[in-house]
């Protein structure tokens, strides 16, 4: 009995060591640029850029297939960061959807029936609640991607713009308006 255990454990240890070593030896290096771009993107996986998620969009940017100004949740700030990283000029937002003011989702808790559909839709797990229980949004986690709005059967989710308060205020990017030459 003991020898059987020892034999199997020995085989497992040897195989584990070989596999562990070869995992390091044969590691597949990803494209580091894609990783850097992916880190800037907001990871909402909302697909509003036209790609199935943030990583495919990052790969498309890295290969020069896509422009840097297609990400609505990233907003102007994200485009600025991407422009800095890639050493290209800043471009105003050019996707299919207009940039909206930064907002978070809000659930009208009197109307919510607890169907959990919005929880399944949320890519960042910012909605808490259980089946037949009222749900609510963790505002600090919400990225404002609006993916939870469509699945709600009773339309109790609305997008509330974040008002400027002391805690949310940030320096604005400088805007120079050039007077047209006469």
């Amino acid at each position, binding site marked *: 009995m003991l020898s*059987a255990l020892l*034999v*199997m454990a020995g085989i*497992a240890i040897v195989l584990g060591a070989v*596999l562990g070593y070869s995992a390091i030896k044969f*590691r597949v290096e990803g494209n580091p640029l894609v990783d850097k771009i992916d880190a800037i993107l907001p990871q909402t996986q909302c697909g509003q850029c036209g790609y199935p998620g943030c990583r495919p969009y990052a790969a498309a940017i890295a290969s020069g297939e896509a422009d840097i100004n297609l990400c609505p949740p990233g907003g102007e700030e994200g485009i600025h960061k991407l422009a800095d990283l890639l050493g290209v000029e800043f471009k105003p937002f050019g996707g299919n959807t207009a940039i909206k003011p930064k907002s978070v989702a809000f659930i009208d808790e009197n109307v919510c029936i607890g169907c959990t559909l919005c929880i399944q839709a949320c890519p960042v797990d910012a909605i808490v609640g259980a089946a037949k229980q009222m749900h609510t949004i963790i505002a600090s986690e919400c990225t404002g991607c609006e993916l939870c709005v469509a699945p709600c059967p009773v339309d109790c989710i609305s997008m509330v713009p974040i008002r400027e308060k002391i805690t949310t205020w940030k320096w604005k990017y400088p805007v120079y308006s050039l007077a047209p030459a006469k």
Partner: protein
Amino acid sequence: MTEYLLILIGAVFVNNIVMVKILGLCPFMGVSKKLETSLGMGAATTFVLTVASGASYLINQYLLGPELSYLTTLSFIVVITGIVQFTEMVIRKTSPVLYQVLGIYLPLITTNCAVLGIPLLNVQAKHNFMESVFFGMGGAVGFTLALVLFAGMRERMEGADVPAIFKGSAIAMITAGLMSLSFMGFSGLIK
């Protein structure tokens, strides 16, 4: 040397693992739609099977022995799984294209019954180390041969005028049966 050659020929033609022993049919039907894919699959299986035959002989002979022989199947599965995992890493590093083409069938070598069957047959036939390795290699080459021949036929069949009822898997099954029949012609080649 002659006996190794005999084992090799016997495993490739006379006791072909797919056509005569009817083992490993999942990848045989699954990966035989294109010639190149089947070659890649054959190469991967050959590597796995050759190494697995040697390793399982050593385990059976020196680790298990007669008193722990009830562990053969279990320990062989563990070893094969490890080798398949290793092969997967190597292929992923060396040939991403082949890695993508083989897809799910690569990890499925683990559950390819031919890969487990040959080490077990080795134990049954009381082969020594070199005989085990050659038998494993022969079995794998036979697997590759059957796979490549079958893939070639299936590629031709894509353009053939097959009656609607027999299209797809049905004609593939019939072809596999006919191929198996033709491999019967090799029986008696080696005593």
